[in-house]
């Protein structure tokens, strides 16, 4: 179905913006609500679920090489239960993609294109991503590789320019209320880390499959480091007021005034956000399209990219009337929903697969003519 191949470096560069793009904007303030001045620790705690998710995805792929979760779930627990698991994954990915598109558009409309109808921003982004997905995985991988400097360099410039304004004493008090507040704060970023399960849709197409695990783990670490640095910068500039901002990194960028010349750095944030959201939506969209085609056992995923685009825009609107609804969903439901679908379900599948494989081997060694089931 997919004839393209990607390298594991391209996979890492597809996943890095996928997690970081939306996590650096809204998440610091959400985490700060729970963890106060300790919110820079939360991404470290949260990253454990990321390592676990990558481990599960790679282990499952080792047992069933060349297949995605949609295909091997049918082999592990039978056709009909497997179809149900596949449906859970697909409905999850379609809905999450819709919400990411909405989140992207809410930010763009809120901060920059104030008079533009939100549907225009959403539909144009989905159309662009649909073209990329239609072009295949190879184009997406190369695009991600090409865009990574556009994503990273503005961040580095931003951190250099904001350096004179950092108030390092904002970090105190450290762990004033014990370790529980940063742990609770890590629940929401944890939901973002579970999105690493997307590598299940990329691993079958790696050229160097052996490096999959290493690059996946390295990406989790890179995401963790980025989030910790972003949270520390936000904390050093905004201090305890972080939790009252919607997009704290935007406030940090607006704060910069370097040599009376470098001002209005929010356009940098915009660049990071648009590029990151583009890669993120494309990767999710690709997983959705490939998964749906495999679920329906089609010969090609390309034709159904377009109707799925319509689905994504529709779920971006469905039962969300404003950005408050979206944020409440992202805090109250998404971290748990993401962990159940993308970490718990794969864990269950892996356990069942390992047990049934062991039984098969025992039967083969004990009896030669026993039926295989």
């Amino acid at each position, binding site marked *: 179905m997919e004839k393209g191949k990607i390298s594991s470096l391209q996979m890492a560069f597809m996943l890095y913006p996928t997690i970081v793009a939306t996590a650096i904007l809204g998440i610091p303030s959400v985490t700060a609500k729970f963890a106060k001045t300790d919110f820079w620790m939360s991404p470290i705690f949260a990253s454990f679920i990321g390592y676990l998710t990558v481990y599960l995805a790679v282990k499952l792929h080792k047992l069933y090489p060349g297949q995605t979760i949609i295909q091997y779930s049918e082999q592990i627990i039978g056709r009909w239960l497997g179809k149900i698991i596949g449906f859970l994954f697909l409905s999850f990915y379609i*809905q999450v993609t819709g919400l990411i598109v909405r989140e992207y558009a809410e930010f763009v409309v809120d901060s920059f294109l104030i008079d533009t109808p939100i549907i225009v921003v959403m539909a144009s982004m989905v159309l662009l991503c649909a073209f990329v997905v239609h072009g295949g995985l190879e184009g997406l991988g190369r695009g991600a590789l090409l865009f990574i400097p556009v994503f990273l360099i503005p961040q580095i410039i931003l951190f250099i320019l904001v350096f004179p304004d950092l108030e390092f004493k904002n970090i105190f008090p450290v762990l004033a209320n014990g370790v529980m507040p940063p742990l609770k704060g890590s*629940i929401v970023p944890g939901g973002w880390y579970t999105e690493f399960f997307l590598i299940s849709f990329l691993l079958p197409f790696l050229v160097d499959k052996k490096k999959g695990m290493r690059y996946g783990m390295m990406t989790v670490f890179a995401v963790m480091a980025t989030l910790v640095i972003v949270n520390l910068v936000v904390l050093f500039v905004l201090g305890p007021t972080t939790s009252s901002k919607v997009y704290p990194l935007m406030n940090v960028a607006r704060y910069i005034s370097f040599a009376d010349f470098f001002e209005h750095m929010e356009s940098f944030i915009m660049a990071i956000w648009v590029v990151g959201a583009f890669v993120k939506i494309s990767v999710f969209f690709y997983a959705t399209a490939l998964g749906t085609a495999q679920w329906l056992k089609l*010969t090609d995923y390309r034709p159904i990219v377009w*109707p799925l685009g319509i689905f994504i825009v529709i779920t971006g*609107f*469905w039962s969300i009337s404003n950005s408050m609804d979206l944020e409440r969903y992202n805090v109250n*439901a998404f971290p748990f929903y993401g962990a159940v679908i993308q970490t718990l379900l794969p864990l269950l599948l892996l356990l069942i697969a390992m047990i049934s494989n062991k039984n098969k081997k025992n039967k083969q060694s004990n009896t030669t003519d026993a039926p295989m089931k």
Partner: protein
Amino acid sequence: MKWAAFLSTAFIAILIILYEWPKLKQKSAKDKLALVSLLLIGLLLSMFHLQEMAGPTSWIEAFFRPLGEFMER
């Protein structure tokens, strides 16, 4: 019923059919059926006032309500 949304979705659906049909001709009937039925579901959904309607997002939020309350505390 929102006519503007429905009509624009119908217009997009026609464009998609026109674009994909020549390539789909040599493929199996299943591929064609999948494309058309997905488009029809999309078209059906575009007829409603989705923003105020209960949907997957609000069902999931209701399902995880106990954990959501823990987050609000």
